[in-house]
C-alpha cells in the first residue's frame, strides 16, 4: 500500500511537471490587445443600444418601455446575424465584448437551435436549445431567488 502511494505520488509530480512545461510553451493571445478589441466591440454594441433607447424616448415612450424595445431589437439583430453566420466572426474578433451583452446571450440560444434542428423539434431544438445558455438561466434565477429571500428576511428584521 505504502509503495503504491509512493508510485502515484511520483506519477503526480511527473504529471505536474509536464503540465507546467506545457503551460510554458503553449502560445497565448495578447491580453491587452484582446481587452482593447473587447472594449471596442462591447462599446459599439452598447452605443447602438443607447441609440435605440434615445430614439424610443424621443418618440415619447417611457423609460421602461424604451428599455424593452432596445433589448428586443438587439436580440433580433443578434439572432439574424447568427442565422447569417456573421455573429461568430464578430465574437471571434471582439471576444467578451460580443459575448457579455444581451446579443451574446441571444447568439448562445439561437446557435444550438440552428445546429440541432436536424434532430427534430422536440429532441433537437427542444432539448438542446439551452445547452449553452441553460446554466446562465438556471443560476441566474436561483441567485435572484436567494437574494430575494435575503431581502425578505432583512426586511422582516428591519435591516432594509
Amino acid at each position, binding site marked *: 500500500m505504502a509503495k503504491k502511494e509512493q508510485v502515484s505520488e511520483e506519477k503526480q509530480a511527473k504529471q505536474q511537471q509536464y503540465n507546467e512545461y*506545457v503551460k510554458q510553451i503553449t502560445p497565448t493571445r495578447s491580453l491587452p490587445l484582446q481587452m482593447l478589441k473587447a472594449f471596442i466591440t462591447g462599446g459599439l454594441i452598447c452605443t447602438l443600444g443607447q441609440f435605440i433607447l434615445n430614439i424610443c424616448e424621443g418618440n415619447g415612450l417611457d423609460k421602461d418601455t424604451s428599455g424593452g424595445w432596445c433589448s428586443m431589437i438587439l436580440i433580433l439583430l443578434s439572432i439574424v446575424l447568427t442565422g447569417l453566420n456573421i455573429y461568430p466572426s464578430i465574437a471571434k474578433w471582439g471576444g467578451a465584448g460580443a459575448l457579455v451583452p444581451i446579443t451574446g446571450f441571444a447568439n*448562445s440560444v439561437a446557435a444550438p437551435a440552428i*445546429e440541432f434542428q436536424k434532430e427534430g423539434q422536440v429532441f433537437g431544438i427542444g432539448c438542446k436549445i439551452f445547452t449553452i445558455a441553460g446554466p446562465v438561466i438556471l443560476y441566474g434565477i436561483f441567485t435572484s431567488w436567494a437574494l430575494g429571500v435575503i431581502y425578505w428576511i432583512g426586511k422582516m428584521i428591519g435591516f432594509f
Partner: protein
Amino acid sequence: MSQMIGKQSISFTEPPYILASGSVVGKKEGEGPLGKCFDMVCDDDKFGSESWEDAESTLQKEAVALAMGKAGLKQEEIRYIFAGDLLGQTIATSFGIMNYKIPLFGVYGACSTAGESISLAAMSVAGGFADTVMAVTSSHFASAEKQFRFPLEYGNQRPASATWTVTGSGAFVIGTKKTHTKITGITTGKIVDYGIRDSMNMGAAMAPAACDLIAAHFEDFQTKPKDYDKIVTGDLGYVGKKILLDLLKEKGFDISEMHTDCGIEIFDKDSQGTDSGGSGCGCSAVTLSAHFLPHIEKGVLKRVLFVPTGALLSTVSFNEGQNVPGIAHGVVIEYEE
C-alpha cells in the same frame, strides 16, 4: 517464421502493398497548401447532404469509391474493410460504407484511427487472411465541433493551442499485388497519460504518446532516426511538435531533421486562421494519401514512419474530470522499385 519484433511491433516477412488511395476534402482544406494534391475537393461542406453527420458519411463513401476506382477493383473484390471516425458509435462509418456490402471491422482510435486501421489491414493481408482489403477514416469539422465543442453558429474564441478538425476522408487499398509502396512493419501504441486536462490543447495531450511510440519503434526495429527519410505524425500541430521534439531529445533521439506533422502541412495557419494546425482522423489520412504516398511512389521518399496520434476523450470523460490520455500508431511505408 515469427514476424513479431521487439515488444510491440511486427516486421512483415511478406510486406503487403498499398495498391491505391483516395482522398476527399472540404473547401478549406482545398484552399490550403496541399489543395491541388487531393483527389476531390468539395465546395459544399455539406456534400449535398441534410446534416453534418450525413456529410461525413458521404465523404467516406466517396473516398472508398475513389480508392477502389484507382485500384481498378470492384467492391466484391475487397475482402474486408477497416474503418472508423470520430463520431459517437462511429456513425459516419456505418452510414457511409453501409451500401458497399463489404465485410466490416469498425475501429476507433480517436485521431489515430488512420494508423490503427492501416495496421490491422496490413496484418490481415500479411497473415494470409485476405488478399485485398481497405482502410478508411474520416473527420468533419462541423460534426466534430457539434459533438465535442459548440454549435458552429455560436460565437466564441479559440485558444491559440486549439487545432482545427480537418474535413476529409482518406481510403487505402492494401493487398498482395506488387506496387511501389509497401508496408514493411507496424508498431502499436499504448495509452499514455501525462495528466493533461485541457481538451483545447490536444497537441500536448498526444505528444507523449507519439514520443513513447517512436522511441519504442526505434527500440523494436533497432533503427535510428537517420534510417527514415520522414517521420510523419498525425495531428500534433505546432504545440505538439515542439513537445514531441523536446521529449524525444530527452530520450536521446533527435528527429528534428526528418519530422513533420500532417496537421502542420495541411493548413497555412497565418492565412487560414487554424492556430495550432489541423486535426482529426481525416487529417493524417488525406495528407498521407495525397501528399506522402505519391512521394514514396516516385521514390523521392524511401522510408517513412507514419504515426497518427489520437486523444482519448469524450465530453463525458472530460466533464467528469478525467485526464486526456493519448495514443499513437506507427506504420512503416517503404518504396520498392
